[in-house]
């Protein structure tokens, strides 16, 4: 109940800050000029606030609990992306005067038709990014209010579209900056409290995964899907009707709806296909789900680091800086703010392995940050901490998804159709509906898998377009278009295949699940090869030099 109140409070406060922000902006001479006067610090906070999504607040801790320490490479990639932004795109993008990537494509290559293609890629990226946000919101709402998952997703869709319609999200800067503070506080305060409260024994257990993972107390587990799991040692569990069942060491299958009560101190079973909780694969800090840890880690790092610069809603924000110089400094500020935030999710993952290992059996690890405080701290203190994390997670969902929805609607009405304001509203509603419909069957897919999909597509399409457009004067229109198509199709198709269809075993699985290592070079190579075959216009060099002149 407290959690629902806290979430409501975050929603209402963001609306109030938003409406106040609109008024403040209107009282100055002009809305646009005012937004360009936003100070670098506010701007950096707003970018960080919009960027830290459900993937960071919920997904990281959950995946860390499930797959191990390697998960933190996602956080490093999310942060390192801004180093690439500083080095390659922040300044020149600001000087191009383009608000969005399609605008930039039109500036650099002078072709309105390329704008439509870019607008379509924006749609794909934004939808892939929106779905996990809705999933996160659905999971959190379902958890704190006890409603089914689909109700949570639907409610989240209504809340976001409603708040955009009310206009509260328009003055994004202040709302997003406010959300950064909310997210940081609401994840940091419970984390610090949990570490202090846990006591030396639990802390030592969290840092020594090789001691094994045991149920901290008598734990009922209800399997919601058919689950195969392995046991290292025999264990006696209790069924709901009171009978005891002896499970021998070895493999077992629990059918859907089975309820077992595991006794205190029993070793946690390993679900099939996941690394042993606390085993060597779990504690080695590399991403390893298919047996090729180094390739997987590098491919994911490439996708996230290079994908960051291709995210439409991130690029848009740099335009609110008055000069290219400030745009670069803002990006450096974002790195500091993100680095500070990413110190905390790891706490939930590490303590979660000791205190709530059953989430791995339930395939509900994305909820660990919300479940853990109530489980670890008994009484009202735990309830309040859980409410804080839930509200922070909902804030993450709210700020990111409203930013994404606005970018998506903007893409729909500005780049694909020549739209007006009513069309923009309609586009918001359509975008939210599609995202909700796609999020409904996505309950079992990890938030971070979906987010990395969006990053992979961005890195295989807009990253080559921006990098070559800014730093290579020979890029031509056919080159850019063919590279966009090749990169977009391969990246979307490969990850989609690995999620939705069975994959051939061995290398093929890894190459399909983590395709960035081959789709990004492929997109670059296509753009460069086709550009070499065609002639750039005479003014191409001016367009490039213009981007670098102070």
């Amino acid at each position, binding site marked *: 109940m407290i959690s629902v109140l806290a979430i409501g409070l975050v929603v209402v406060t963001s609306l109030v800050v938003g409406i106040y922000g609109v008024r403040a902006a209107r009282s100055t001479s002009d809305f646009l000029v005012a937004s360009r006067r936003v100070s670098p610090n506010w701007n950096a906070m707003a970018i960080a606030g919009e960027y830290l999504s459900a993937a960071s607040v919920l997904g990281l801790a959950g995946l860390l609990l499930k797959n191990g*320490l390697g998960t933190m490479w996602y956080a490093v990639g999310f942060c390192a992306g801004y*180093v690439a932004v500083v080095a390659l795109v922040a300044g020149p993008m600001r000087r191009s005067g383009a608000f969005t990537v399609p605008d930039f494509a039109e500036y650099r290559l002078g072709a309105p038709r390329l704008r439509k293609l870019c607008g379509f890629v924006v749609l794909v990226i934004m939808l892939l990014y929106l779905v996990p946000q809705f999933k996160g919101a659905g999971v959190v709402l379902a958890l704190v209010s006890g409603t089914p998952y689909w109700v949570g997703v639907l409610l989240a869709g209504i809340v976001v579209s409603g708040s955009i319609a009310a206009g509260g999200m328009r003055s994004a800067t202040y709302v997003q900056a406010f959300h950064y503070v909310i997210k940081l506080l609401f994840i940091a305060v419970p984390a610090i409290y949990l570490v202090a409260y846990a006591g030396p024994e639990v802390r030592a257990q969290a840092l020594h995964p090789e001691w094994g993972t045991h149920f901290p107390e008598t734990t009922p587990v209800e399997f919601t899907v058919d689950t195969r799991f392995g046991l290292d040692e025999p264990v006696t569990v209790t069924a709901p009707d009171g009978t005891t069942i002896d499970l021998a060491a070895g493999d077992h299958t629990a059918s859907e709806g089975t309820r077992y009560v595991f006794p205190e101190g029993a070793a946690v079973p390993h679900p099939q296909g996941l690394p042993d909780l606390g085993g060597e694969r779990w504690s080695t*800090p590399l991403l390893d789900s298919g047996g090729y840890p180094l390739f997987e880690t590098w491919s994911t790092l490439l996708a996230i680091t290079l994908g960051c610069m291709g995210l439409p809603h991130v690029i848009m924000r740099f335009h609110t800086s008055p000069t290219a110089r400030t745009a670069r400094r803002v990006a450096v500020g974002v*790195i500091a703010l993100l680095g500070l935030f990413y110190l905390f999710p790891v706490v939930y993952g590490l303590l979660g392995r000791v205190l709530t290992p059953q989430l791995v059996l339930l395939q509900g690890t994305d909820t660990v940050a919300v479940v853990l405080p109530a489980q670890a701290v008994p009484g009202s203190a735990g309830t309040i901490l859980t409410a804080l994390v839930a509200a922070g997670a909902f804030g993450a969902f709210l700020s990111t998804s409203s930013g994404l929805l606005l970018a998506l609607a903007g893409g729909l009405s500005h780049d694909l159709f*020549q739209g007006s304001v009513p069309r923009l509203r309609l586009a918001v509603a359509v975008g939210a509906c599609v995202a909700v419909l796609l999020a409904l069957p996505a309950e079992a897919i990890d938030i971070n898998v979906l987010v990395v999909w969006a990053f992979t597509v961005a890195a295989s399409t807009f990253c080559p377009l921006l990098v070559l457009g800014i730093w290579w004067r020979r890029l031509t229109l056919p080159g850019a278009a063919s590279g966009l198509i090749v990169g977009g199709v391969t990246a979307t198709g490969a990850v989609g295949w690995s999620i939705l269809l069975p994959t051939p075993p061995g290398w093929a699985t890894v190459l399909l699940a983590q395709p960035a290592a081959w789709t990004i070079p492929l997109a670059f190579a296509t753009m460069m090869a086709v550009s070499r075959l065609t002639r750039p216009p005479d003014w191409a060099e001016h367009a490039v030099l*213009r981007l*670098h002149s102070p």
Partner: protein
Amino acid sequence: MSPRREKLTSPQTRIALARGNRPAQHLLPIPEPVDTEAARRLFRIQRRAAVRTVSLLSLLLFGMSGSFALWPVLTQVRLGGVPLSWLLLVVAVYPLLFLLALWHVRTAERAEECAEVGRGKDDTTP
């Protein structure tokens, strides 16, 4: 009978109405640089800085993950009770990323300042 009322609008409004729903043309025109050679020089300096930063970034990310794969001992060695590789990945990497970005900004801004000073000299010479 009063004369027909005429709607008065500001010139800006008339322009806006005439333009209809077409998207605003906020894109800059692309003029030839004042001094093409100087602009090319600055471009090359900036490109060198960008290549250096991106190489260092790759070295940091790929080198760190590569060393975790090469030397599993990094996870066994403990610093203050925490495995060394965890500390590197979870804490130490962020200040390094920040310093790298800061260094790049310094380099890029210095290059721009130099270019501006150079252009200022050109303006004063007759």
